[in-house]
C-alpha cells in the first residue's frame, strides 16, 4: 500500500506515512484525491489569503492511545470556567479526536452514537472537491453522530474538543454529524481548546430538516501553537433555521469554513462571527451560502479585531441559484485594526442568477475612531479603558446576534477572561 508516497509533496508529505496505510475504499479514494490535488496553496482561489506553510516541517503523528486524564480535565474546566452555567450542561467531550466518556455528561432525549463504532461519512462533504475534507475522510477515527428526533426540543448539547499534545505535532480529524429532524430543536455549543502543537481538522455534517431549528455557537480557543482547519456543511430544509455564530480567538492558524445550503423554501441561515486576534495569529472565516430555493433568507455579520501582527481573513460568498427567486440576502464584514502591523483581507462575494432578489453586502476597514476615543476620555475615562470599551462594543454587535442567552453570556465571558486587564496600546 505504498501507492501514493511518490506523489505526496508539499505539506501533504507530513501525513504521507499515515495516508499510505489506509484500509477501506472510501479512505483510499480520499487519499487518492489528495495525492492528485495536494493540500491547497495560494493558487487555489479559496485559499488565496491563507497559506498552509504554517503546518511546518515536522510529520504529524496519530494521537497516542493514552492521554493524561488530569491534563484533559484541567483543560475542560479551564475552558468552561468563565461561565459556571456551562459546567452542568450535557456534553460530549473528545480528546485528541476520540470520545472521552469520563469527561462527558451524555444528553438525554437524543439519539447518540459515535463514528468510531459506526463510520458513516455522510453525503455533503465531498473529498474530491475539498482537500481538507479529503484529509479528514482519510484519517477520521471518531466523531459525534447526534440525531434529535422529530418534534423534540433537545435543549443544550456541548461538543468539546480538546487537543493534548507536546512539542512533536500530532493531528486528529474528527467527523461529526448532526441531524435535527422535522420540527425539532437543538442548541449546540462547540468549544475547542487545547495545549501543545496539534492540527485539529474536523468535518461536521449538519442537516436541519423541515421546520427544525439549530442554534449553533462555536468558540475557538485553540492552543497558541495549534492549527485548526474545520469544514462544516449545513443543509437546511423548508422553514428550517440554522442560526450559527463563531467566536475566533486563535490558535496559530484557524480557519472556519462553512458551506450552508438553503435547500427548500423559506429556510433561514445566519452565519455570523467575531474574531479577536493578536500576536502572529491568522484567523480565517470562510463561508459559502447557497440559496437553492425561493423565499429564503440569509444573514451574515462578521466583525474582526486585529492587534499585533495578526491577520484576519474573511471570504464570504452568497450564491443565489436561478430557482431562488425572492431571496433576501445580507452580508456585512467589518474590521478594526489596532496595530500598524495588523492586516485584514476580505472578499465578500455575490454570485446571483435569479432576478427577483434583494441582496447586498458591505465591508469596512478602519482604526478606532479618534472622535469616539476623545468623547470617552473627555469624560474622564483613561485611554486604555476607553479603547477597551470601544473594542468590546464593536465585537458585541456581532455577539448580540447570538439568540441563545447562555451561549451569548459564555462568549462574552470567554472574551473578558482572555483580555481582561490586557492593555491594547501597541
Amino acid at each position, binding site marked *: 500500500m505504498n501507492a501514493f508516497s511518490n506523489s505526496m509533496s508539499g505539506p501533504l508529505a507530513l501525513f504521507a506515512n499515515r495516508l499510505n496505510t489506509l484500509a477501506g475504499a472510501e479512505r483510499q479514494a480520499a487519499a487518492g484525491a489528495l495525492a492528485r490535488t495536494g493540500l491547497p496553496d495560494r493558487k487555489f*482561489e479559496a485559499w488565496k489569503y491563507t497559506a498552509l506553510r504554517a503546518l511546518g516541517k515536522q510529520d504529524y503523528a496519530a494521537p497516542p492511545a493514552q492521554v493524561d486524564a488530569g491534563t484533559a480535565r484541567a483543560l475542560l474546566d479551564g475552558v468552561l470556567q468563565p461561565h459556571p452555567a456551562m459546567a452542568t450542561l450535557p456534553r460530549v467531550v473528545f480528546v485528541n479526536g476520540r470520545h472521552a466518556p469520563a469527561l462527558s455528561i451524555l444528553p438525554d432525549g437524543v439519539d447518540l452514537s459515535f463514528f468510531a463504532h459506526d463510520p458513516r461519512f455522510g453525503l455533503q462533504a465531498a473529498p474530491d472537491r475539498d482537500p481538507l475534507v479529503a484529509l479528514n475522510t482519510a484519517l477520521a477515527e471518531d466523531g459525534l453522530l447526534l440525531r434529535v428526533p422529530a418534534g423534540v426540543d433537545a435543549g443544550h448539547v456541548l461538543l468539546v474538543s480538546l487537543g493534548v499534545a507536546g512539542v512533536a505535532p500530532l493531528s486528529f480529524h474528527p467527523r461529526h454529524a448532526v441531524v435535527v429532524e422535522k420540527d425539532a430543536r437543538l442548541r449546540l455549543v462547540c468549544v475547542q481548546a487545547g495545549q501543545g502543537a496539534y492540527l485539529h481538522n474536523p468535518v461536521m455534517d449538519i442537516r436541519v430538516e423541515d421546520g427544525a431549528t439549530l442554534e449553533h455557537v462555536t468558540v475557538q480557543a485553540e492552543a497558541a501553537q495549534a492549527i485548526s482547519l474545520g469544514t462544516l456543511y449545513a443543509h437546511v430544509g423548508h422553514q428550517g433555521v440554522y442560526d450559527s455564530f463563531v467566536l475566533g480567538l486563535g490558535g496559530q492558524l484557524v480557519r472556519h469554513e462553512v458551506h450552508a445550503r438553503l435547500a427548500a423554501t423559506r429556510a433561514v441561515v445566519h452565519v455570523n462571527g467575531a474574531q479577536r486576534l493578536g500576536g502572529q495569529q491568522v484567523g480565517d472565516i470562510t463561508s459559502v451560502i447557497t440559496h437553492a430555493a425561493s423565499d429564503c433568507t440569509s444573514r451574515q455579520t462578521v466583525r474582526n479585531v486585529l492587534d499585533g501582527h495578526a491577520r484576519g481573513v474573511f471570504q464570504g460568498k452568497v450564491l443565489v441559484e*436561478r430557482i431562488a*427567486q425572492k431571496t433576501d440576502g445580507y452580508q456585512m464584514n467589518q*474590521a478594526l*485594526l*489596532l*496595530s*500598524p*502591523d*495588523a*492586516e*485584514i*483581507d*476580505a*472578499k*465578500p*462575494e*455575490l*454570485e*446571483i*442568477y*435569479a*432576478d*427577483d*432578489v*434583494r*441582496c*447586498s*453586502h*458591505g*465591508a*469596512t*476597514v*478602519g*482604526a478606532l475612531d479618534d472622535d469616539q476615543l476623545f468623547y470617552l476620555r473627555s469624560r474622564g475615562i483613561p485611554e486604555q479603558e476607553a479603547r477597551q470599551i470601544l473594542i468590546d462594543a464593536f465585537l458585541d454587535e456581532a455577539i448580540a446576534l447570538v439568540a441563545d442567552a447562555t451561549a451569548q453570556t459564555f462568549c462574552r465571558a470567554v472574551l473578558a477572561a482572555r483580555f481582561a486587564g490586557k492593555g491594547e496600546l501597541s
Partner: protein
Amino acid sequence: MPAVTQTREAVEKLGQSSYKWGFETDIEMDMAPKGLNEDIIRLISSRKEEPEWMLEWRLAAYKTWQAMTEPKWAKVTYPPIDYQDAHYYAAPRKKPGPKSLDEVDPELLRTYEKLGIPLHEQAMLAGVEVPEGERMPVAVDAVFDSVSVATTFRKTLEEAGVIFCPISEAVREHPDLVRRYLGTVVPAGDNFYSALNSAVFTDGSFVYVPKGVRCPMELSTYFRINAKNTGQFERTLIVVEEGASVSYLEGCTAPMRDENQLHAAVVELVAMDDASIKYSTVQNWYPGDENGRGGIYNFVTKRGICRGARSKISWTQVETGSAVTWKYPSCILQGEGSVGEFYSVAVTNNRQQADTGTKMIHLGRNTRSTIIAKTISAGHSDSTYRGLVRVQPKASGARNFTQCDSLLIGDQCGAHTVPYIESRNMNARIEHEATTSKISEDQLFYCRQRGLSEEDAVGLIVNGFCRDVLKELPMEFAVEAQKLLQISLEGSVG
C-alpha cells in the same frame, strides 16, 4: 428632459434590435500571413520602421509570452483561442506617407463618417454638423485594424506643446519619451495578454502633455477592427507632466462576423505632481448575435500610475460591447495625496460575458480612491464586478469608498460581485457596499401609469441607475453612451 427625448428617439430610430456599426469596409488590405513567430514580429517592426531597441523589446516580450499560460480565474468561458490562426498585422494599403486627409483612401473616410467620427477638421470647425460654440472640437486619432489612418487637429495641439500622434510615429519621432515610459506601468510580463500585446502591438495613441499645460481640447482615439481573422493589439501611452492635464476618450467598434476576434490592448498612464488624466471609454465592440455566435474577445490591461503628489487619474467606462470582456483599469496611487477614480457602467445582453472592475493600489500617504460600478445584466448574459482595493503599510490616511450596484433584467442572466479588500495600515479607511436587485415593480408601474411604454420606462430607469457614472463622461459622449445603453438592452424586456 432632453435625456428622455434622446432615449426615446434612439429607440424609435432603431426599431429592430441591431448592431448598427456592423458593416464591413471593402478596402485593399496589406496583411501579414497568419500565425505568430519571431519573423512576424520582425515584419511588424520593419513595416513600422522601428529602431532596433523596439524590435528587441518586442522579441523579449514574445519570449516571456511563450513561457506564460492563459489566465483562467475570470468568471468567463470561451473556447480555446488558437493564437496561430490570426493575422497579426493588417493595414489599409496606401501610397507611402499620406501627408493630408486628401490622400487617405476615400473609402476609409466614408467608414468613419458612417461611424459618426468626423475626420475633416474643416467640417467640424465650420460647424456643418453641429453649430459652432455648442461643441468643443475634439482631436481624433483613428486606428483602422493595425494602423493609425488619421490624426486631426495636430497643428493646434502642437502650438500648445501637446504631442498627440500614433504610437508607431512616436517610436520614430520621440524615441526618448517612449523609451523612458513604455512598459513602466504595465511591464511586458505583467500578464499573458500584456506580454502578447508587447510583442505584436501595431498601433495606438501616444500623448505627452508638457509641464503646466492644460490640453486645449478633448483627445480621442477611435479603434476599428475591420479585416477578417485579425486581432487588434493597440498600445496607448499617456504621459502628463507636472501641473498638466488632459481628457482622453476612446471608442471602438467592429463589423458583425460569425468568428471571434481577439482584442488585447494595453493602456499606460503616467501622472506627475499635480497632473490630472481623465480617461473615458465607450466600448462597443461587436458583441456577437443573440445566440452568442461571433463577437470580440476583449482582454485588455489598463493601468495608470499617480507618480506625483496630488496627481489624479480617473477612469470612466461604458462597456456595452464584446462577447467576452476581461478588463480592470487600475490606479497605482504612489504620490502623496494622489487620487484614483473608477466609474463604470457594464451592460451585458444575450450571451455576452463581462468580468470587469478595477484595482486601487494605495502606496502613498493620504491617497484616496473612489469606485462606482454599475452592472446591468439581461438576456442570458453574465456580468461580474471584480475589484481590488489594497492599502500598503506606508499608506497612512488612505481612504477608499466603493459602491457596486447590479441590476438584473430577466431571470436567465447572472450578476456577480467579487471585491477583494486588503488593508495593511490601521489608519486607512475602506468602505465597500454592493447591492443586487431587479427593476422595482413600483418604479415601472409609476412610469407606465404616466403613459410610458415598458421599454421607455426601463430605459428611463436604467439611465437613472447609471447616472452617477454617465455624469462623469464628457458631455458629447454622455449622450452617445445613453443611446448605447438603450440599444444594448433592446429586446430584453417584455
